[in-house]
């Protein structure tokens, strides 16, 4: 419909006249004395004024979230409810995060004034213990992709520069490791739940249950089976991000953390926001910016601890991060580029935003500010079992209404008017024999984005895994089995089986006849 919008490079300059790279003067806009060293969105800063500017933005973004309640004081004493956990990838943002947190909150180097009193007062974070302890968590992903090197020890060396930080390394395959799950305090489950996502035409995700056996697949095998079953590069990249996030969250919980800090810069945040919206995650835009996570599936007698996920570098662009790291001699190991995801939505968004930032430098800031003005439309139905973020109501009804995928869909049958049959000699379409609620399916427990990740296919050819069941991450099984018991409260079955064979295997030793 749009008749406007032919990207013509020869016309581009005529349309969006470029502003000067910097304002009227080349001198620092803050001290107005020294010549500028860096241009940040048309403003020039000298090196000495630049670093305090970054730490100020950092503190402004973090400190309002430290105390559990805001209180009435304008400058309250900062005291967190629990410990601190920082996610570390070796990349630019998280390297900066470690360094700035260490400098501001853990260096214990009080600056004294002429009266030998600490500068900034006793409530200044430098002079007070805000968190009792701090842990740095790294999730190693090398086993997910061949050819990637293990960076665990390299990053341990980096973290050892900060003696007050404890280093914890987890591995991406822990997402399928029951022993890790029990170590971080997860509810035990005796079922290995698998899902059938091999059907390229169906959007339903049927659950297949099986008891653990001594010959069960290793966590790495499960991870590889899961990733190889995903239909697109976008799905692989999203799955890795989700796993890293959940592994970090459970590690934080097991460490008694009240805060999880991420090194997401303004540029990375804008990329995440646009990428998430492009994958149908509009309902959780708020969570992309700032999130409070409470583990689902905890017994009713326990008070579930809440972890605040904060991105203190959310107002600092990637360029500013790079300059800060360079001028403060911060070691940046660098993240390895994850192969097999370069054509995914996240990578495309990254290329687009980084490219756009060069010509339109305020775009990344605009994206983040615009998204901060948004809120979800309705109250959530619950939490998604896979990503553990709020889930919207009626997702499948919406999907079914928008795209007809079979003539058996209830919507067609209940149409107010009689739909014509496209083939007059065809028998009337059969109605679905089962509704979603009558069978154990993962579909109603997934948010729009996660369901799309598992079911939406690329146009470049259908990737079918056949009917091999794909194992699910360890945190999915307990609440899913609980929900199955709620659906059938009269049947205290303990485990739910859809196939005859697993049922038979489970009771085989009690059968007298084979």
């Amino acid at each position, binding site marked *: *419909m*749009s*008749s*406007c*919008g*032919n*990207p*013509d490079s020869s*016309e*581009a300059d*005529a*349309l*969006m006249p470029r502003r000067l790279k910097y304002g009227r003067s080349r001198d620092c806009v803050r001290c107005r004395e020294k010549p500028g060293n860096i241009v940040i969105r048309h403003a020039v800063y000298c090196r000495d004024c630049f670093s305090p500017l970054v730490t100020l933005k950092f503190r402004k973004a973090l400190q309002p979230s430290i105390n559990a309640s805001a209180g009435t004081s304008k400058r309250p004493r900062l005291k967190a409810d629990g410990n601190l956990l920082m996610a570390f990838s070796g990349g630019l943002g998280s390297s900066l995060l470690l360094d700035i947190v260490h400098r501001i909150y853990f260096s214990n180097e009080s600056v004294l004034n002429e009266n030998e009193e600490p500068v900034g007062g006793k409530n200044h974070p430098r002079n007070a213990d805000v968190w009792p302890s701090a842990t740095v968590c790294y999730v190693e992903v090398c086993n997910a992709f061949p050819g990637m090197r293990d960076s665990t020890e390299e990053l341990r060396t980096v973290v050892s520069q900060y003696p007050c930080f404890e280093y914890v390394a987890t591995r991406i395959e822990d997402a399928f490791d029951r022993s890790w799950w029990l170590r971080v305090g997860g509810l035990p489950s005796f079922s290995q739940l698998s899902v059938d996502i091999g059907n390229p035409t169906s959007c339903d995700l049927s659950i297949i249950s099986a008891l653990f056996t001594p010959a069960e697949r290793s966590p790495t095998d499960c991870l590889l089976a899961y990733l190889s079953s995903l239909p*697109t590069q*976008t799905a692989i990249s999203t799955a890795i991000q989700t796993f890293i996030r959940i592994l970090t969250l459970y590690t934080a919980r097991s460490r008694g953390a009240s805060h999880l800090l991420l090194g997401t810069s303004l540029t990375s945040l804008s990329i995440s*926001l*646009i990428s*998430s*919206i*492009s*994958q*149908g995650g*509009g*309902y959780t*835009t708020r969570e992309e910016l700032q999130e409070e996570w409470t583990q689902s599936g905890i017994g009713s007698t326990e008070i579930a601890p809440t972890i605040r996920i904060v991105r203190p570098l959310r107002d600092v662009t990637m360029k500013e991060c790079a300059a800060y790291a360079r001028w403060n001699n911060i070691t940046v190991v660098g993240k390895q580029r994850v192969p097999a995801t370069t054509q995914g*939505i996240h990578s*495309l*968004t990254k290329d*687009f935003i980084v490219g756009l930032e060069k010509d339109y430098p305020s775009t990344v800031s605009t*994206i983040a500010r*615009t998204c901060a*003005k*948004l*809120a*979800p*439309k309705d109250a959530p139905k619950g939490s998604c079992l896979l990503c553990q973020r709020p889930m*919207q109501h009626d997702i499948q009804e*919406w999907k079914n*209404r*928008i*795209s*007809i*995928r079979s*003539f058996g869909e209830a*919507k*067609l049958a209940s149409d*107010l*008017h009689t739909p*014509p049959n*496209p*083939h007059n000699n*065809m028998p009337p379409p059969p109605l679905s024999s089962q509704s979603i609620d009558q069978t154990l399916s993962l579909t109603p427990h997934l948010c*729009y*984005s996660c369901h*799309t990740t598992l079911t*939406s*296919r690329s*146009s*470049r050819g*259908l990737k079918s895994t056949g009917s091999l069941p794909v194992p699910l991450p360890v945190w999915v099984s307990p609440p899913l089995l609980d929900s199955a018991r709620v659906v059938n409260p009269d049947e205290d079955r303990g485990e739910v089986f859809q196939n005859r064979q697993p049922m038979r295997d489970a009771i085989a030793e009690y059968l007298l006849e084979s």
Partner: protein
Amino acid sequence: MAPASCALCQNAKAILKRPKTGQQICKECFFYVFETEVHHTILEAQLFKPGDKVAIGASGGKDSTVLAYVMKTLNDRYKYGLELFLLSIDEGITGYRDDSLETVKRNQQQYDMPLKILSYDELYGWTMDAIVSRIGKKNNCTFCGVFRRQALDRGASTLNVDHIVTGHNADDIAETVLMNIMRGDIARLGRCTVICTQGEDTIKRSKPFKYAYEKEIVMYAYFKKLDYFSTECIYSPDAYRGHARAFLKDLEAARPSAIIDIIHSGEAFEVKEEIKATQKAQQTCMRCGYMSSNELCKACTLLEGLERGMANSVITDRARRKMDELRPAPDILRTIPQYRSPLPAVSVEVAPQS
């Protein structure tokens, strides 16, 4: 390899892969699901009631040509009881709109619908050719977009219709969601996924193709052998939108559901209440009576700029204030005729069913 059978009817040979679902289906099933999805969209949003007079915004392009055909088909098939009209706006772009209007005139004959053509020249006294010769290509889309929106309402008013339907498709809406986020237009972001909008005294306006992929619209026109005018506007150099469109196409190539996923995102969020409270309330233009968020509506502001030879200085509100400070508007100024809505003053906003 044996040809696949249709994933929907299982009977006929599949001849196409649906861009929206990736399913391999036959031609008849494609027509059926395409039309039925539009029908579901119309029903869910309760867009029409029997007896409504509906103007189809027709440019002669693929979207409006297919829209006219599908609206007529559905109106006959499901007995909506609508009285359909074609409404075209002649922006005055030589070599582009004059050719596309020929297509609309053919559609008028084929679909047997009354056609009303309203030109910028008769409404504003300016054609787009004249505007571009005055201001150059830069920002010309701002003039065209603002003028077209008002011209459609005025054309509909003269036809005395209740409703205007436009051929905006899923790609357009997804692109607009992204654009509004990237340029921080929170007011438009809040309403761009709404299927049906109606201001205080403007005519209801809706988008039945909200969930229809552009590729499927082309596919439908191709298999139905509908003729449409397919040239891009010769004055369309909106580079920023071009970036967004190219990005959306990349996303669609990576995962075709991206278009519908972006629309779902747009429907799932809303502007926070405290932000809404700071937005400007709607009022009536003191000069032409059309809805406006300022004393003067955007079309009157732009027209005044053109008439005073200061067109480039009225694109933004700040520039407009500067122009006023320089010297007030002269008394003798060509203005837009007073707008008279055919509707009683009501405020309705039909939210999409999600």
